[in-house]
């Protein structure tokens, strides 16, 4: 099963830090195995760069198994690359052809400033969570698992929303750099459940306000976010957030 090695051309965004001006830079990379993950391909590039005394390309990564939400990258204009429902770390080089030119850019948004090269600061997402994406409860003995009955369908919907790994692909792929899909997923996973009802109003108002303050764009309902989400978060979450926000704003003093 020895796969043929590939030669690829890379165009990568290089930027020393947030204050410097960046530019696209070309690289040629040989001996790329189709079985490599996309990040392993970048590791190979960095090895070559380090060996030749150059500065390696900075990019975010952590678990490399598609669950942590650290990897990002705009690959040929698509967040996390061409494969549906897949994070960059789970994308393999067999998705590309020998001789391909691959354009790699950081996720771009005013609220996601570039740290270095392909690495962006996604603290904005943490700030949205801190503005209401939680439930407050007394920690004590573990509560009885079935004390609060929750219907199967509701539980599934909440779980689907909770699948969001907060990678920011929705913001990156949205023409308006809107964070509606992320915010709505983080709101929905709580708003759907009885435990989340108590703070529903403060949550909706707080998260939306924070999201707006951070300079994310507005939603045009074009669904690019849904199309590029590696976890399949659906647009119905945004509709739910719209309802929750309307209810909360209406009853707010």
């Amino acid at each position, binding site marked *: 099963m020895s796969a043929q090695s590939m030669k690829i051309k890379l165009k990568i965004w290089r930027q020393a830090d947030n204050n410097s001006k960046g530019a696209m830079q070309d690289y040629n990379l040989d001996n790329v195995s189709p079985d490599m993950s996309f990040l392993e391909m970048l590791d190979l590039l960095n090895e070559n760069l380090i060996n030749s005394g150059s500065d390696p390309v900075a990019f975010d990564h952590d678990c490399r198994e598609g669950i942590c939400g650290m990897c990002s990258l705009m690959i040929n204009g698509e967040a996390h690359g061409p494969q549906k429902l897949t994070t960059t770390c789970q994308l393999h080089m067999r998705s590309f052809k020998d001789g391909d030119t691959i354009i790699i850019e950081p996720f771009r948004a005013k609220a996601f400033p570039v740290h270095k090269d392909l690495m962006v600061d996604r603290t904005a997402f943490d700030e949205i969570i801190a503005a209401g994406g939680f439930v407050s409860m007394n920690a004590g003995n573990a509560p009885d698992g079935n004390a609060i009955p929750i219907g199967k369908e509701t539980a599934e919907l909440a779980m689907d929303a909770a699948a969001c790994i907060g990678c920011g692909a929705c913001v990156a792929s949205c023409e308006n750099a809107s964070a509606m899909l992320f915010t709505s997923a983080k709101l929905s996973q709580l708003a759907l459940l009885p435990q989340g009802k108590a703070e529903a109003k403060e949550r909706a*108002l707080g998260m939306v306000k924070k999201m707006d303050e951070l300079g994310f*764009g507005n*939603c045009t309902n074009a669904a*690019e976010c849904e199309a590029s989400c590696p976890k399949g978060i659906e647009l*119905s979450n945004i509709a739910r957030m719209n309802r929750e926000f309307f209810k909360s704003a209406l009853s707010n003093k």
Partner: protein
Amino acid sequence: MASQACTSGICGYLCSSIGKKQLMGVTAFLLIGFLKAHLLGNFLLLLGPAAFNEYGHKLMSLGPLLIIAEIILLAIFLTHLVLAISLVWQNRKARPVKYYSKQRTGRGATFASNTMPYTGIVILIFICLHLWCFKYGTYYEFDLDGIIVRDLYRTVIEYFANPFYTAWYVLAMIAMGIHLSHGVQSAFQSVGFRHARYTPLIKKLGCALSLFLTVGFSGLSIYGYYISTTLNY
């Protein structure tokens, strides 16, 4: 808390991204309602000058009621326009550094959703010219069973006698159709209406409505051109 003022009450709602989008949606529904009524009225052109001018006269004879209705319609339109400018402005600011490669998944955005601001501008220019030509256009008189009323039918036919004018109308109506083909379903989503079974239906009905309005309005302008050439009115 100082920031409390912005989250609370109607002002906070209207300042928010979601509030603005919801008001965009509601004004869109109202404007579509107006378009449908406008088109139905225009169909009276097919019945000839008497029917069309009588309709116009009846509307005009509403007097102050008509003026109130016009002011409300203008307010709705301006709200939609101002919100659109504000939203687009914020959207542009949200991504100061553009991508090197074009963003695309091919599974989300459509031509219609990408061009909403541009088709909107075409509609704005169209409406200004449309009011200039017809509402505030040439005043001819028409004898409607002894009552002298405005002969708007003649003004309409005179304008559409110019094939370039007719062509511009058709193009503007196509732009409106494109705008609505995304706008209808988008408005439903903004007000929070989304349903596994009904949303696909809404998308289809939205496109059907856009097609109906586009074909209706542009068909009537082509009819106007046709009448001007055959009847020599």
